[in-house]
């Protein structure tokens, strides 16, 4: 397991084509997200076509949506939210989850027990209801959205990281550190984290995918990106009516989602993995 954590350039790892493709697609979307305002031909909210679910045309490269807004621009801008929010929340979720997981693994005892119980419980409360309560209680904004998602996904990340950390924690070099009298902070930061970062990254990617999809669901609850902007999931949802006649408005956002999530997974599945020298 720990071997997957090896990403040091010092070894000329066999560079994996698939991984590179994945990486470049992700990079592409990130760039789009950054430069969207400058490259999108029309304002997202502008109704540019009196027809709806318009076809692909020279003016509207990806057709128009149910209101006759330019899909190309909407998808470009959507990248901002989909990529941005997903990244932000998955980062928070994993940061919190992994940190707590490692602490629980190192400290152990009642702290571990209580925390695990609690997060299990949290995990078992349906996301839907959680979302509703949050909106109801604190209203909806990007921050709230991100934090909600993070809260929903942290427990899983915790479970995962804890399991890994428990194994590493049993290693002698951790024992040595303990014998040296090192504190928890150092132990988890310097001794444990570097050895679980690989699988953690893999987990990170999977959660990322789920969050991309979850977004659309939450916007349904009023928790989400505010109109006229919309994340990709929301784009699919608001144009789902066009599905029956294969409107570009519903096809392309789906493709966008797929391309992002698939490439994220391609990258993760092909993270450089050490092949041990099997000679003995």
């Amino acid at each position, binding site marked *: 397991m720990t071997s997957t954590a090896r990403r040091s350039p010092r070894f000329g790892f066999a560079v994996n084509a698939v991984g590179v493709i994945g990486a470049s697609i992700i990079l592409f979307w990130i760039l789009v997200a950054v430069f969207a305002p400058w490259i999108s031909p029309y304002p997202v909210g502008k109704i540019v076509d009196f027809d709806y679910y318009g076809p692909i045309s020279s003016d509207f490269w990806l057709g128009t949506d149910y209101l006759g807004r330019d899909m190309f621009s909407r998808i470009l801008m959507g990248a901002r939210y989909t990529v941005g929010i997903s990244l932000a929340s998955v980062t928070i979720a994993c940061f919190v989850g992994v940190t707590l997981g490692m602490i629980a693994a190192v400290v152990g005892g009642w702290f571990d027990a209580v925390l695990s119980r609690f997060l*299990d*419980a949290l995990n078992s409360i349906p996301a839907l*209801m959680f979302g509703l*309560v949050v909106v*109801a209680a604190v209203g909806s904004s990007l921050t709230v959205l991100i934090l909600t998602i993070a809260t929903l996904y942290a427990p899983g990340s915790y479970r995962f990281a804890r399991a890994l950390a428990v194994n590493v924690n049993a290693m002698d070099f951790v024992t040595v550190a303990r014998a040296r009298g090192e504190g928890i902070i150092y132990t988890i930061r310097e001794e444990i984290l570097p050895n679980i970062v690989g699988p953690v990254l893999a987990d990170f990617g999977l959660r990322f995918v789920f969050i991309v999809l979850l977004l659309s669901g939450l916007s349904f609850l009023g928790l989400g990106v505010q109109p006229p902007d919309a994340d990709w999931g929301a784009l699919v949802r608001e144009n*789902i009516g066009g*599905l029956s006649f294969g409107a570009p408005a519903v096809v392309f956002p789906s493709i966008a989602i797929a391309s992002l999530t698939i490439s994220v997974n391609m990258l993760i599945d092909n993270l450089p993995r050490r092949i041990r020298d099997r000679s003995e």
Partner: protein
Amino acid sequence: MNAVIARLVLKRLGIMLLSLLIVAFAVFFATELLPGDVAQILLGQAATPEAVAGLRTAMHLDEPAFLRFLHWLFGLMSGDLGRSYANDREVADLISGRLANSLELAFVTTLFSVPIALTLGITSAMFRGSFYDRMVSVFTVTVISIPEFMVATLAVIIFAVYLRWLPALSVASEVHGIGELLRIYAMPVITLAFVVSAQMIRMTRAAVIDTLNTAYVEMALLKGASRRRIVLRHALPNALGPIVNAMALSLSYLLGGVIIVETIFNYPGVAKLMVDAVSTRDLPLIQSCAMIFCVSYLLLILIADVVAIMANPRLRNQ
């Protein structure tokens, strides 16, 4: 040995109850946070202040929250889920039918998706790195990344509207014979299978591959065992623990998470029931539903643990 298992299960059950208590507390006060007053919502615009007041006292809404929490908790313990605010029926009656439906759906889906997931996961582990393996992983990722409501709607359009093979709605109420059953469940099950199996496939594959790297698998190979035998007889039994765990997590989705499917196929299950409950601020109902989801989740985890233990002699008889 059974005694050992029994003790273990009891221990886990204890932990589970503890978690449930926490959940109960969380759920109750979470629902309290929902804005809008029940009595007000029930009486609608025609509510006169005195009418509201009367209703509130009738519902014990004027008592302090904590007291109501205790009431409710003791109710739960004595198996009394309380009465629905919305339509003065026993919550138990309201839920039972819906729960049955949900369980049916979950059951059929499990029956359908688990074998598929296992086969795909195991085979792709067997032929790790092969073209087949790559195909499977691409497939799973793709499946993961298609929004559920899209799969469902697409399925309806193709199978119900154009081909007219299957009904667009899954009304579980009048089922005549197995054929009918299949027709009704086909689409929701397909949709859900899409959602849950991807994760199971991935985990199964990973777990099996892990065990394939062990010395005893090499030993089996040096005994002249066939690949098939190695995987099925040696790797799989030891991979069972993690696999079952992953399955439990995936399947736990099938009760609370299927709101989209229930909505699109108009399938009367608990998830939809809960959404209704939320919109009508029917606290007893919301709370009961939430508790059901939690119980089912924790039960699944428990089952997973027990299976893992059964599969591992080291844990089994210590």
